């Protein structure tokens, strides 16, 4: 199987970092931010393992203030595979997902204990800038959210435009590549300049996927990406995901057990403990989880029994 190597994103082409803003006075912000220690630009010559998009999560706890939403999660997300996270409502699945690209930090008083390692690097390390992390770990949301003031073209390159100037040609190429990979190119190639909101729900979601792909991530997080779509659109998204897994690591939170059993390679089952914190009950190959789970709770959930 030919592994396609995505064209190098034309980034880090900016001038070297100017002097960091010296004391600009109090900047109260609702979100914690980490300042990266100045460590130079992209230095490819450093000998690092080849990127694989592998996530190792160890003893992860996520707190909102004093309330622990997610408890002691340890698991490994296999690269270039689809990992489904299933479980009843409120058991911290989304919180867990968002902690992988530090999106939970938009909520004040959110904090994390434990580690999330992406290819060996702890994403919560002080030297890691969440802004950079989110380029490597992309996200697709439950409701399609294309930018309504932008055309389809501009939507796709919205993330790229953040990282400096790109030539028109390279942008054009990225747009086409991303839309092809999102299985949307044929439907929109003649109306790239029209507004993103003119598409159907399923198309909008694929546009959002294209947008996430354009910045060339390693991992794509999906928070119930098809739950707002009709069954036909859902099916197309699922087919798309099966294709995407060849090049990206995918983690999907879903309420739909059939979906999880259809498309995922691995499944993690979460549930809510008595202390209202979500925890990992069991994680295994999808076949195992759905036909021969080890834990009684898992068995109950996947067979529709509650109690």
């Amino acid at each position, binding site marked *: 199987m030919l592994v396609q190597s995505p064209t190098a994103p034309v980034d880090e082409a*900016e001038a070297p970092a100017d002097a960091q803003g010296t004391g600009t006075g109090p900047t109260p912000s609702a979100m914690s931010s980490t300042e990266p220690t100045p460590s130079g630009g992209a230095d490819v010559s450093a000998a690092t393992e080849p990127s694989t998009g592998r996530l190792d999560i160890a003893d992860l706890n996520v707190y909102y203030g004093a309330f622990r939403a997610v408890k002691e999660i340890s698991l490994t997300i296999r*690269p270039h595979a689809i990992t489904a996270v299933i479980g009843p409502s409120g058991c911290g699945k989304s919180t867990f997902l968002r902690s992988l690209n530090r999106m939970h930090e938009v909520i004040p008083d959110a904090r994390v204990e434990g580690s999330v390692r992406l290819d060996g690097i702890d994403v919560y390390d002080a030297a890691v*800038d969440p*802004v950079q992390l989110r380029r490597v770990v992309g996200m697709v949301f439950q409701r399609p959210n294309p930018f309504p003031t932008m055309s389809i073209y501009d939507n796709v390159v919205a993330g790229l435009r953040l990282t400096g100037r790109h030539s028109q040609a390279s942008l054009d190429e990225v747009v086409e590549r991303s839309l092809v990979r999102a299985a949307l190119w044929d439907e929109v190639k003649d109306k790239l300049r029209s507004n993103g909101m003119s598409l159907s729900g399923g198309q909008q979601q694929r546009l959002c996927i294209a947008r996430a792909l354009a910045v060339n991530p390693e991992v794509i997080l999906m928070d119930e990406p098809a739950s707002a779509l009709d069954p036909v659109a859902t099916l197309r998204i699922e087919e798309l995901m099966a294709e995407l897994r060849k090049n990206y690591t995918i983690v999907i939170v879903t309420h739909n057990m059939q979906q999880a059993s259809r498309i995922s390679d691995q499944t993690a089952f979460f549930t809510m403990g008595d202390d209202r914190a979500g925890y990992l009950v069991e994680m295994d190959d999808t076949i195992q989880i759905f036909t021969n789970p080890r834990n009684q709770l898992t068995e109950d959930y996947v067979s529709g029994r509650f109690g």
Partner: protein
Amino acid sequence: MAATTTAPARTADILRAGAGGRRMWFDRVMRSVALLASLACVIPLGAVLFFVTARGISAVNLDLLTKPSRALGVGGGAVSAILGTLQMVPLAALLAIPIGVLAGIYVHEYGAARSARTIRFAADVLVGVPSILIGIFVFTFLVLPFRQYNAFAGSVALAVIMAPVIMRTTEEVLKLVPGNLREASLALGVPRWRTTLAIVVRTALPGILTGIMLAVARATGETAPLLFTALGSRLVNVGDFGKPMDALPLFIYVNARQPYDLQNAQAWGAAFLLLVFVLAVNVLVRLGSTSRRRTP
């Protein structure tokens, strides 16, 4: 499965690279600029408060409070203005509150969508009409026909300013009353008018009062509508709404334009009184609503 090469950037390099000093620098700078802009908004408030207090408080003496205006440069006080405001504003409130509250109730409770929208729109437009035009309007039908400036016209002008404001704030507050309160009352057989008054309005009363107080504070500070109606006066007028009457804002305006230091000082003094009242109402209203929110 072969490992993907993503030359030149690999995960570790991207993560360790930082977003680019320029982006982070710009982010911090713009957020600081936004903070500075906010502080810049507060500076004029401080400046006005400071000067009005500094120059006004020393001018608030017994003379100011008890003596009427005299021939220029010779002294006197603001008692005619104070008494005038104390008479015209309550009368204006008396006229405006029933109209405003009832209109707000109508738009909220009974308005079929289309007529309610038109009425609401008209009220909003009226709120935005410059107050001097309202003064001219009242002049043409309450002053001109009688060839007589009078305080009643002044109160009417203030009432015209207050009524749409009260109407809109009443409606906004009524919207917050949960619908099931009304339904429960109607289900018990309470007639609709009684439900509206005794249940819905009663629940919304604090908010309605807030709206009224803010409207009163605003009317107290209005000058332009009084220029052509009540006109202002150096004489003390108690009770005669058929004649001109002074008011605090008019007093400030007149005395500020005089070339005499004493008159200017009195303008500051009157401004201090006016400002204290207006700000006190605003502060009280804010404290009242926050304390209500704290009690569950």
